[in-house]
Structure formats: structure tokens, C-alpha cells
């Protein structure tokens, strides 16, 4: 629990205040309830007195009435008695509301209405009837009667009033008891609360004051330590959250500041001492440096003088002072680098020399092969001539074959027409056969009818008896004729049917022939296409051969140029040799660590240079092959004319008939257009 000192004090005060306050509240509450009970008791006391007065007045009225009755003989009522009666009856009447209100508040079970009636009757009897009787001198019986009436009524009133009086005294007693018990309870409660408040407040005070005192004592001890000079130990209680913690933190800050200050003073003292020491050391150093620089300059001057004489062997081995050491190293590096470069140049020049000798050998080789190439070109050219002639012959043969195929095709088409006509003739025969069949049917019918007629004639003849005998014979003859006609008709019918079947077969055969002829026609067309492609291919070949001829001519030309270039190369090699010798002489002026060997190499090529190499002498190269020159960047890859020809031949045989119209002309154009760029390209060699 982190509380500041003021908060702690506040907590104690508030606890005490709460205790006292609760005591006050309890006291006020109990005294107010006691006083209320006492006030109630007083009210009831007043009512009690009034009831007693009423009882007394009632007795007075009865007694006065008795007196009046007793003195009836005088036939007059004294004024004193009359006044007493009036006063008391009025008092009685006025007392009724008081009794009524009390009875209602106390819950008494009394008949207020009958009480009021009784009082009214008493008042009436004593104040009106009695005076009238007395003044009128009424008989004795009347007086007895009224006397009884007043007595009984007065007795009833008295009884009621007695009850009320008893009630009032009871109520008063009750209120007093309430007041006493309330006072006792409040005293006990106040004592309990007071005790608890004192205990709680005392406990809190003790705890808080102990807490504060502990903190203060810790701070005080630390401050005392610092005051005595012990600043190394830190102040206690800085971690507290209250004002004491704050004091402790301030004290800690002050302690730290003191420590820092002492350290700074010690450092300043140290610095002052070291500056003094350095100053004296610098003075002696400067004198030493001047002497050293002088020595270095002398040595470097000697080295540079030797270098000017061309001596590259000397190095400066004596180390310089640190800041001039770089100078010495650079000198040594420059001398070493120069020496290496001179040595390198010597090596390269000898290498160039040997390379030039190799180039010379290669050039001679090249010259020999160029001659061989020229001879081979000659042979190729004559062979091509032969091929060209053969090609022309085969082309004319192929054209002839094409013409023959054309005529065959026309004949095949003609034969198709013939077949069609034959088919039509067959159909005509068929229709004629059908007509014959119809006619035969008619003949058959006639024969049948004739037979019937003959039968009938026979029948008639038979019926005629003897007379019809001759007629019967004739009828028989006629019947036989009819039968023969029917038989002949049947035979003809069979024959016609057979010829119809034959015609059918013939028609089928003719159709098959037509189909075969059509197939032949289609095949002939295909053969014709093939012949056309063959002819076209032959023409393409002719054009290709012409191109090859041109190319061979160009190759010959290039071969001549190559021979000339070989001559030039030989001359250039000679010049290169001489230049190499001169270069080696120049380099020999330098003396290097490898100086002796460099000079020896420089003399060797001079001996070689004097041995004459005959130009274009046949040198048998053993295993030496001239390096193939790398492709120059401007050079384009080109297809050779021979390959181009092959491609064109393939195109021709793939059977594109559309490109075959006037092939000689187109291929000739192509050859001429392609010849000029090819010559340009070949001349680049």
C-alpha cells in the first residue's frame, strides 16, 4: 500500500471522525424518541384531569338535584343552586368531544352516542323538568320518579367516565415505560460504538506513525553518513512512494553530484601533467627527423642517376623512415616493373619471329593447294558440259512422252462416248422385245378364242348328229390349228424372254467397259501430270547447271586472286622478320637482372633472317596445319549455289503444276538475277 504521509494522517482523522459522528447520531436518535414518549404522556395527563373534572361535575349535578328535591316544599329554587346546575351541566356537555377523541385514539369500546344521550337527559331533567315540578308543586310521586331518573342516568355516566379514567392512567404508564427502555438501549449502543471507534482509530494511528518513523529514521541515518564524509554508499528508502521517498531521492542526487565533481577534478590534474611531458619529447624528435630525411634524399638521388643510365638491376635495400618508406617502395616497384616489361618485350619479339616463319610455311602450302584447286575446277567444268547435253536430251524425250499421253487421253474420252451409244442401243433392243411380247400375247389370246369357238362348233356338230359329222371334222381341224398357233406363240415368248436376258448381260458388260475406260482416262491424266513435272524438273536442272557453270568461273577467278595474295603474304613475312631484329637491338640497351639471356635471344633471329627462304618453294609440312582464320564480323553466312540448285529440284518434283507455265523463261530470269549478288559475295575473298 503506497500512501503519502498526508494521506496516512487523513486516514486516521477520518476514522476518528466517523466514530464520533456515529456516537452523535445514535444519541440524537434516542433522545428524540424519549422526548416523543414524554410528550405523549403529558397529553394523556391533560385528558385524565378533564375526565376527573367531568366525574366531579356529574356528582355535583346529582347532589344539587337531590337538594332541589329535598327543598321542594319551598316551591322555589335558590339562585345559587340554579347556577351550580347550569355550570356543571354545561361542563358535562362540553366534555363529550374530548372523551370521544380520546376513545377513538386509544381504541376504547364505549358508546359515545348513549353517553351523549344520557348527559342530554340529565341536563334536561335537572334544568327543565325539576324546576317545573318544584315551581308547579307537583305531587310526591313525580318527584320520586325524577329522582330515580337522575340517579340511574348519573350512575350510567359515572360508569363510563370510570372506564375512561382507568384507560387514561394505563396509557400514561405505558408511555413512561417506553421512554425508560429507549433510554437504556441508547446508552448500551453508544458504549459499543464508542469502544469500536477508539480501538480502530488507535490501531490505525499506531501503524501509520510506526511506518512514517521507520522511513524518517532510515533517511536520517543516511544523511548523517553523508555528513560524516561517506559518499560511496547510496541513500536508503529511495524506492518509497511518499514524501520521505522523495527526500531520500533528492539526497541521493546530491550524493551522486558530489561523487562526479571529485572525479572531474582528479582527471584535470592528470591532463595537465601529461601535456608538459609531451612538449619536451617533441623537441628531440624533430632534430632526428631532419637528419633522416637528408639521408633518404641522398640515396634516392643515386638510384635515379643509375636508372637514367639504363641500369635496371639496382634496388634500394636500406629501409627509409616510416613516412618516406613509400617513396623507396615505389622506386623499387617502378624499377622491377620496367625490368619485367623489357623482359616481356624481349620474349614476345622472339615469339613473333618464330610465328612469322610459320606464316611463311603456311603461305607456301596455300599456294600449292590453290594450284590443285584450279586443276580440279577445270575437270568439273568439262563434266558439267556433258551433264548439260544429257539433260537436254532427256527433256525432249519427256516432252514427246507428254504429247503421246495427251493423245491417249483424247482417245479414252472418245471411247467413253462409244460406250454410251452402245448402252442406248441396248435399251432400244429391250423396248422392242417388250413390244414383241405384247403382240405374242395378242396372238395367244386369239388362239384361245379360236379354240373355244372350235369346241363350240364341235359341240354343235355332235348335237346335229349324222348331219354334223363333216362339220365336226372341220371344227377339229380348226382346233388343232389354234393349238399349234398357241404353241408357236409360247415358243416365241420364251425366245423373247431369253433375248431380253442376253441384252441385260450385254448392257452390264458395256457399263463395266465404260467404267474401265473412265479409270484409264483418270490414270492417263495423272501420268500426264507426272510427265509435266518431269519436264519442268529437267528445265530447272538446266538452269541450275548454268548457275553452277557461272559459279565455277567465279571460283577460278578467286583462285587466281588467292595465288596473288600468297605472294604478297610472303613479302610481308620478310619485312616482319627484319622489324623484329631491329626491335631486339633496341631492347638490348637495357640492363636487367635477366640481361644476359635477353641479349643472347636478341642475336638469334638475326642469324635466321640471313638464311634466305625461296618463295613458293614446296615445303613438306609435317603435322603443321595453318590455323583457320576466324569469321570476320562483316561476313554473312551464304548458301552455296549447288545447295540452292538441290532445293529448287526438290520443289520441282513436289508436283506443283501451277508454277510450270513457261518454266524456261522464269528460271532463266532467276538465274540472271541471282548471278549478280553471288559474284559480289564471292569477290569479297
Amino acid at each position, binding site marked *: 500500500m503506497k500512501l503519502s504521509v498526508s494521506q496516512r494522517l487523513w486516514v486516521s482523522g477520518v476514522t476518528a471522525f466517523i466514530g464520533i459522528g456515529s456516537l452523535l447520531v445514535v444519541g440524537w436518535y434516542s433522545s428524540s424518541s424519549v422526548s416523543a414518549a414524554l410528550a405523549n404522556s403529558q397529553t394523556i395527563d391533560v385528558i385524565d384531569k378533564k375526565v376527573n373534572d367531568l366525574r366531579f361535575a356529574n356528582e355535583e349535578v346529582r347532589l344539587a338535584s337531590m337538594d332541589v328535591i329535598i327543598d321542594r316544599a319551598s316551591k322555589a329554587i335558590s339562585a345559587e343552586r340554579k347556577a351550580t346546575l347550569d355550570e356543571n351541566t354545561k361542563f358535562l356537555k362540553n366534555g363529550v368531544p374530548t372523551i370521544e377523541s380520546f376513545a377513538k385514539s386509544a381504541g376504547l369500546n364505549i358508546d359515545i352516542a348513549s353517553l351523549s344521550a344520557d348527559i342530554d337527559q340529565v341536563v334536561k331533567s335537572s334544568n327543565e323538568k325539576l324546576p317545573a315540578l318544584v315551581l308547579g308543586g307537583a305531587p310526591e310521586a313525580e318527584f320520586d320518579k325524577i329522582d330515580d331518573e337522575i340517579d340511574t342516568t348519573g350512575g350510567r355516566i359515572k360508569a363510563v367516565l370510570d372506564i375512561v379514567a382507568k384507560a387514561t392512567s394505563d396509557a400514561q404508564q405505558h408511555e413512561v415505560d417506553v421512554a425508560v427502555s429507549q433510554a437504556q438501549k441508547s446508552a448500551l449502543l453508544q458504549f459499543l460504538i464508542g469502544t469500536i471507534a477508539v480501538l480502530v482509530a488507535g490501531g490505525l494511528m499506531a501503524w501509520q506513525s510506526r511506518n512514517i518513523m521507520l522511513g524518517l529514521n532510515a533517511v536520517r541515518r543516511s544523511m548523517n553518513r553523508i555528513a560524516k564524509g561517506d559518499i560511496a554508499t547510496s541513500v536508503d528508502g529511495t524506492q518509497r512512494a511518499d514524501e520521505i521517498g522523495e527526500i531520500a531521492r533528492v539526497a541521493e542526487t546530491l550524493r551522486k553530484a558530489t561523487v562526479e565533481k571529485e572525479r572531474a577534478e582528479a582527471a584535470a590534474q592528470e591532463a595537465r601533467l601529461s601535456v608538459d611531458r609531451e612538449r619536451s619529447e617533441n623537441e628531440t624528435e624533430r632534430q632526428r627527423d631532419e637528419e633522416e630525411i637528408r639521408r633518404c634524399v641522398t640515396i634516392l638521388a643515386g638510384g635515379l642517376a643509375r636508372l637514367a643510365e639504363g641500369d635496371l638491376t639496382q634496388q634500394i635495400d636500406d629501409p627509409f623512415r616510416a613516412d618516406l618508406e613509400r617513396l623507396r617502395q615505389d622506386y623499387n616497384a617502378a624499377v622491377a616493373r620496367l625490368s619485367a616489361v623489357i623482359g616481356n618485350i624481349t620474349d614476345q619479339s622472339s615469339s613473333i619471329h618464330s610465328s612469322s616463319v610459320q606464316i611463311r610455311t603456311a603461305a607456301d602450302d596455300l599456294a600449292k593447294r590453290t594450284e590443285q584447286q584450279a586443276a580440279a575446277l577445270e575437270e568439273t567444268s568439262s563434266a558439267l558440259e556433258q551433264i548439260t547435253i544429257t539433260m537436254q536430251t532427256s527433256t525432249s524425250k519427256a516432252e514427246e512422252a507428254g504429247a503421246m499421253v495427251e493423245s491417249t487421253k483424247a482417245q479414252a474420252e472418245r471411247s467413253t462416248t462409244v460406250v454410251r451409244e452402245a448402252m442406248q442401243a441396248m435399251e432400244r433392243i429391250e423396248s422392242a422385245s417388250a413390244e414383241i411380247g405384247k403382240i405374242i400375247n395378242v396372238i395367244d389370246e386369239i388362239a384361245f378364242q379360236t*379354240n*373355244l369357238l372350235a*369346241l363350240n362348233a*364341235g*359341240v354343235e356338230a*355332235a348335237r346335229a348328229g349324222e348331219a354334223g359329222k363333216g362339220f365336226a371334222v372341220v371344227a377339229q381341224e380348226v382346233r388343232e390349228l389354234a393349238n399349234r398357233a398357241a404353241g408357236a406363240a409360247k415358243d416365241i415368248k420364251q425366245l423373247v424372254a431369253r433375248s431380253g436376258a442376253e441384252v441385260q448381260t450385254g448392257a452390264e458388260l458395256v457399263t463395266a467397259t465404260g467404267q474401265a475406260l473412265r479409270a484409264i482416262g483418270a490414270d492417263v491424266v495423272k501420268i500426264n501430270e507426272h510427265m509435266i513435272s518431269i519436264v519442268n524438273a529437267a528445265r530447272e536442272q538446266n538452269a541450275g547447271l548454268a548457275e553452277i557453270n557461272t559459279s565455277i568461273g567465279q571460283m577460278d577467278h578467286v583462285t587466281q586472286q588467292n595465288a596473288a595474295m600468297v605472294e604478297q603474304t610472303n613479302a610481308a613475312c620478310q619485312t616482319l622478320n627484319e622489324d623484329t631484329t631491329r626491335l631486339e637491338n633496341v631492347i638490348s640497351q637495357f640492363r636487367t637482372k635477366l640481361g644476359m639471356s635477353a641479349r643472347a635471344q636478341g642475336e638469334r633471329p638475326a642469324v635466321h633472317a640471313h638464311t634466305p627462304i625461296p618463295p613458293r618453294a614446296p615445303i613438306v609440312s609435317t603435322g603443321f596445319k595453318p590455323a583457320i582464320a576466324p569469321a570476320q564480323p562483316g561476313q554473312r553466312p551464304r548458301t552455296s549455289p549447288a545447295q540452292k540448285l538441290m532445293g529448287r529440284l526438290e520443289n520441282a518434283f513436289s508436283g506443283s503444276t501451277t508454277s510450270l507455265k513457261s518454266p524456261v523463261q522464269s528460271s532463266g530470269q532467276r538465274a540472271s538475277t541471282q548471278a549478280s549478288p553471288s559474284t559480289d559475295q564471292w569477290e569479297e575473298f
Partner: protein
Amino acid sequence: MTNAIKQSGAYLEIVSFHLGDQEFCIDIMAIREIRGWAPVTPMPHTPRYVLGLINLRGAVIPVIDMACRLGMPMTEPSERSAIIVTDIKGKLVGLLVEQVSDMMSIKSEDLQPAPEIIPEAQRAFCRGIVALEKNMVCFLNLDTVIADELSMAA
């Protein structure tokens, strides 16, 4: 009639015709006329073998399928079929036959009685059998074949 034939002498004139595979013949004197096939008008409530009626020059006569009447399958009429118009007991009746084959005269001795094996009622159809060189021909008794039916119908 039978007596009349026997009395008439040695020769007997007959007309033969085909019904199916068999050949039958009748007396020529019973025949009035032989005609080609013409369509007939069917009559109700008649036996199966009565094909119907035809008009013969104004006279209406019935046509009987002889094959059916003799217990064989019905004849299929064609252009070559014939109707033989006969006079049976004064009444004209047309007989449908497949084909009229011949007209011949035979000796009465050649007419042999039908074998006893056939029952009496059926034997009455046949007056006898004519044995020719190639085949046998049944001589039909038209009176029994047709006349009974006609009398019943009447």
C-alpha cells in the same frame, strides 16, 4: 339318259377337261356352249361351290366350281379357265373348269364301271372310267352331281 346312250350305238361323244391334276369328262349332248371365264355375281346363302350368277344372253344361270363340288381345292379362275354351260334336266348350269382339253368319241365298251371299293353314295357321281393310252378319265354323272342339289335348292 343312260339307256339313251346305250341305245345310241357303239360310239359315245365326250368332252374332257382338267380339274387340278385329274382329268374328267362329260357327255357332249349335255353341253350347250363353252365360254371363256367372266366375273360372276356372288349369291348369298349358297354352298361354297356355288360361285354366283352370270348373264348368258339375257338368261341368268348359276356357276358351280366343279373342283370344289367334287371335294378338291377351289379353282383359281384365270383367262384360260372356261365355263361349260350344261343343260341338266332342262335347267342351264355353268361349270367352272381349269381347261377344256379335248373332244373325242369313244366306244361304249371302253367305258368301264367304277370299282366297288368306292361307297355307293359317292359312286353315283361316276358313270364309269374311260381308260385311254396315257391316262384314265372319270366320266361324271351330271344328273347326280348337279341335279340333286338343284332340286334341293328349288
